[in-house]
């Protein structure tokens, strides 16, 4: 704006000065002074119809420039979606060196174009004038200019060529106007004609083109073209166009419908579907196809069959499988038809599937779920997860059409997901509740039974059981079972295979694998092959074996561990893990859905696992351990009338430790197989609730074990002292003197028994707990045994002859301690061995005995001289040697006296 304001001022002063420059400036200013500012003119130009625009361009050079402004035309092309900025840039880049030249040539081209256009416009105007009066002359007026204009555009007027007008459009900077001109020349006559026509028979377009395909093509072009028309009255023109298209579309649809009813797939349906596709994407046709589809009128089966065919409170998924199989077959047939009928571009199958999911699946599934939910929870859970799995497989069997993109499977998945979405929340909640309730009742029943039986029968010592091997054995079979493929659900056999090779189909079908928990096996059709017996055996045996094996092992284990049955049970743990396994397996199916639902399903799986641990841990194992520890602390060897090989409550406890360890390892395997491997849980994420719960459970177990062991050592030592007190005969170490020295060698009964007791208890723990904890336990046991032995020794009288028995005993203890592989502990028992030699020394060597007693190095620092002296006092002949020893040791004695 400012330049225009300043201009008159300059001009006013310019005349007064005689400077050449100013006068020159003034001159130019006068000449270029516009009536209206350029911007306003430009804006006005925007609203002019093309013909007026051309006339305006002819008024002056400046106006011409304004009208010819490239961006004006680029804008129109852009609106029609015909301007490719990238292409334009590329073209500009290519012509860089000859830029000015190119421009020049284009300028000449301009003129030619303008000329031609102008000519055409005037013709049009003339024609319009004619047309307004005589409606039947459009064709004539259209064809008249063509011979008159000796331009290369002549063939454009050929109606066939016009059909592809848009494909010839190029995006060239600087020549947008020409490109637009071409389009305008081709389409404007039809467009304006259409706008003026009163009925659908009037427009020339329907006369020029007889073919519905061509008509549709042109109408589609016109729709695009109408977008570049924003001159006055465009709204009415466009409305007109839309109504025309509507009329046309209706006619085509009618044709299509007729074809549909006659099921003329490759004829009418194909043809008119394409016409509709060309016209406006063919939505109307697709809609009609999907809406009127026969698929929705067929009843493929009732969902209630699933309930009715099964025994009470149960559900069979066979009808649903058949239903989905039939549905899949039908849809695949439709997919073929869709390929044949519809033009490329629109994913008709997807739309059809949407509708199928909504109208068929939804209606099939919802009443079934509601009904089974009311009837019984387990069958509901089975139904939801089972049908979901079947639906997913159903999705996999669908064949994509040519139009379905690469994400066909994802689309199908999301369609299935939409069907199940309303049920998932309730299902997951129920699944979790169901598991919790089941587990809790299980534990409660156990508790009740326990309180009835009372824990009196718990002590049952099992000898010669190789625990570690048994456990390993048991665990390996447990692992095998857990690792088995999902077997709680019947899976869909491949649909196509049934027809072609029945035998083949049977082998593909997973063999029935009964669940350990004893829930009924989903019934399954047997499709016998040529040799049913043979295939049946070969296919079912391998997968069935581990389950049976585990059941057998569990029974074996249970019978062996019968003694501790009443505190907590491995069977319960096994049952609980199996409930959890089936629940998690069912819920995990939904994880595949992904997104929020999948995430929720994953979380629910973790929650089930956490609950499993809590119920198993706090309600079952912990209570059992507490009871065992309680029994331990109440134990008093003197009150027990009958001494068996082991300390009953300690044995019970140690067995519990074993079972606890077994359960913990089971949980570990379970976690790895069910949660970590299928990526339900991240084992490296320390905040993961499952990991936290697992850690807590293990910690709880460790704590109980530690507490129990603490008590257990006390009890064990009580028992050792009791055995020492009761079985050690006074003559063991002080045999009646026989002149012939008739004695035999070897450890005494007492020592053997003590070693037996301690050894059997420490052995029971091997491999059941943490190694460091075991080491601590062994060390403690060893030290306490040492103390007990010292105490015991100080109560004995030992003669020189008896010392051989003592040495034998000490050697036996030493041998036992060596098996613990604890160097520190061994030192103590070494010292005991050395100590026992003191008793071997004959009385006549009393003086040297003193030296031995005082030889601290000999006892490895375990005993001080004073302590050894105390032990020496236990010699049977002490009072005879005492003087000599004391004299030698302290320099006092009767000699001094």
């Amino acid at each position, binding site marked *: 704006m400012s330049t225009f304001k300043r201009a008159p001022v300059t001009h006013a002063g310019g005349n007064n000065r005689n400077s050449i420059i100013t006068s020159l400036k003034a001159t130019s200013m006068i000449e270029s002074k516009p009536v209206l500012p350029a911007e306003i003119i430009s804006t006005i130009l925007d609203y002019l119809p093309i013909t007026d625009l051309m006339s305006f361009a002819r008024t002056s050079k400046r106006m011409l420039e304004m009208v010819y402004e490239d961006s004006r035309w680029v804008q129109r092309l852009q609106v029609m979606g015909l301007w490719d900025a990238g292409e334009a840039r590329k073209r500009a880049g290519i012509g860089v060196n000859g830029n000015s030249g190119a421009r020049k040539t284009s300028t000449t081209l301009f003129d030619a174009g303008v000329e031609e256009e102008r000519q055409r416009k005037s013709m049009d105007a003339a024609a319009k004038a004619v047309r307004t009066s005589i409606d039947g002359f459009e064709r004539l007026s259209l064809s008249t200019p063509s011979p008159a204009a000796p331009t290369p555009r002549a063939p454009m007027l050929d109606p066939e060529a016009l059909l592809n007008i848009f494909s010839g459009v190029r995006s060239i900077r600087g020549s947008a106007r020409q490109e637009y001109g071409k389009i305008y020349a081709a389409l404007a006559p039809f467009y304006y004609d259409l706008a003026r026509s009163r009925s659908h028979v009037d427009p020339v377009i329907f006369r020029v083109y007889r073919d519905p395909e061509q008509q549709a093509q042109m109408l589609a072009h016109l729709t695009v073209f109408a977008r570049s028309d924003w001159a006055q009255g465009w709204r009415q023109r466009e409305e007109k166009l839309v109504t025309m298209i509507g009329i046309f579309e209706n006619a085509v649809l009618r044709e299509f419908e007729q074809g549909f009813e006659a099921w003329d797939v490759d004829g009418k349906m194909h043809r008119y579907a394409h016409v509709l596709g060309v016209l406006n994407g063919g939505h109307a046709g697709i809609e009609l196809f999907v809406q009127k589809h026969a698929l929705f009128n067929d009843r493929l089966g009732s969902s209630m069959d699933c309930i009715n065919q099964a025994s009470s409170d149960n559900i069979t998924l066979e009808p649903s499988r058949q239903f989905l199989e039939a549905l899949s077959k039908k849809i695949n047939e439709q997919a073929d038809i869709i390929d044949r009928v519809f033009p490329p571009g629109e994913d008709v199958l997807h739309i059809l599937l949407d509708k199928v999911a909504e109208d068929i699946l939804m209606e099939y599934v919802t009443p079934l779920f509601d009904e089974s939910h009311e009837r019984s929870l387990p069958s509901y859970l089975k139904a939801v997860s089972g049908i979901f799995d079947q639906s997913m497989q159903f999705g996999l069997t669908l064949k994509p059409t040519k139009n379905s993109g690469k994400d066909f499977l994802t689309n199908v998945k999301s369609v299935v997901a939409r069907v199940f979405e309303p049920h998932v929340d309730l299902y997951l909640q129920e699944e979790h509740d169901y598991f919790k309730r089941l587990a809790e009742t299980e534990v409660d029943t156990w508790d009740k039974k326990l309180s009835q039986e009372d824990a009196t029968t718990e002590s049952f010592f099992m000898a010669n059981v190789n625990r570690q091997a048994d456990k390993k054995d048991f665990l390996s079979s447990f692992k095998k079972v857990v690792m088995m493929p999902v077997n709680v659900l019947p899976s869909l056999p491949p649909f196509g295979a049934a027809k072609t090779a029945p035998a083949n189909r049977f082998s593909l079908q997973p063999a029935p694998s009964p669940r350990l928990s004893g829930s009924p096996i989903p019934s399954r059709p047997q499709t016998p092959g040529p040799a049913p017996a043979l295939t049946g055996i070969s296919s079912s045996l391998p997968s069935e074996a581990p389950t049976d094996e585990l059941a057998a092992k569990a029974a074996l284990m249970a019978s062996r561990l019968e003694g501790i049955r009443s505190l907590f049970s491995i069977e319960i743990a096994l049952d609980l893990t199996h409930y959890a396994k089936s629940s998690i397996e069912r819920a995990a199916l939904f994880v595949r859905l992904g997104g929020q639902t999948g995430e929720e399903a994953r979380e629910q799986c973790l929650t089930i696992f956490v609950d499993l641990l809590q119920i198993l841990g706090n309600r079952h194992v912990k209570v059992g351990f507490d009871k065992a520890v309680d029994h331990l602390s109440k134990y008093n060897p003197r009150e027990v009338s009958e001494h068996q090989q082991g300390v009953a409550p300690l044995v019970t406890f140690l067995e519990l430790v074993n079972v606890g360890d077994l359960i913990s390892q089971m949980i570990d395997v379970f976690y790895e197989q069910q949660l970590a491997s299928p990526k339900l849980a991240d084992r490296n994420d320390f905040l993961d609730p499952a990991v936290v719960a697992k850690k807590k459970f293990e910690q709880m177990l460790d704590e109980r074990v530690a507490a129990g062991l603490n008590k257990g050592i006390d009890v064990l030592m009580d028992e050792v002292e009791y055995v020492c007190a009761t079985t050690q005969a006074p003559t063991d170490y002080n045999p009646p003197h026989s*002149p*012939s*020295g*008739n004695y*035999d*060698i*070897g*450890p005494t009964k007492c020592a053997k028994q003590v070693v037996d007791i301690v050894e059997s208890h420490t052995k029971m723990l091997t491999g059941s707990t943490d190694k460091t904890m075991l080491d601590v336990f062994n060390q403690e046991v060893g030290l306490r045994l040492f103390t007990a032995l010292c105490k015991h020794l100080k109560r004995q009288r030992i003669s*020189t002859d008896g010392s*051989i028995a003592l*040495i*034998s005993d000490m*050697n036996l203890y*030493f041998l036992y301690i060596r098996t613990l592989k604890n160097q520190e502990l061994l030192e103590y028992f*070494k010292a005991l*061995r*050395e100590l*026992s*030699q003191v008793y*071997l*020394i*004959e*009385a*006549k*060597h009393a003086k*040297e*005995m003193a*030296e*031995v007693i005082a030889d601290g190095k000999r006892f490895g620092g375990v005993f001080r001289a004073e302590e050894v002296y105390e032990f020496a006092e236990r010699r049977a*002949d002490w009072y*005879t*040697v005492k*003087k*000599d020893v004391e004299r030698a040791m302290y320099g006092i004695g*009767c000699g001094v006296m």
Partner: protein
Amino acid sequence: MANDEYDFLFKVVLIGDSGVGKSNLLSRFTRNEFNLDSKSTIGVEFATRSIQVDAKTIKAQIWDTAGQERYRAITSAYYRGAVGALLVYDISKHQTYENVTRWLKELRDHADSNIVIMLVGNKSDLRHLRAVPTEEAKQFASENNLSFIETSALDASNVELAFQNILTEIYRIVSQKALDNGDSAQANLGAGQKIELTNPADGGAPKGGKCC
């Protein structure tokens, strides 16, 4: 506790330097075991095994001693009542052979004068490391009126034989003696009777103390 019937019970001691393989000889003879990395014996260990000689059951009570016992009071306790001794050396270590003389002296000092001694060159499997010629040892043995044998506890060669020999020898002496003093009650030894070669009166009376 092997409380089975036996006709004679002989106490035999195993002596010799530390590390010559006494414990392994014992375990090879009594349990047929061999332990390559056995630790040195602490104090003393006992083992028994019965063998048949002339239809008599002879029970051997073998004392395996630590080779480095310093106290006479203890070693003499080892020798007390022993009727046989296996003096073991290592054929691959000359020093252990040299010490045989010292051990002989100790035996003469502490043990019964009639004790039957057998010189045993152990580890005969280590042929390539031999440091003591067989002939030399044999010569030495005959000079000192000992029986001699080379054994290997590792491959079990001659172990059985060594014990057999010494026990048989003891048995011969004992039965000869029993014949000699036929009048004594010990002529017909009952089961479980032990032969004392020494006179019980000899110095073994602790009661006769030198006190005041």
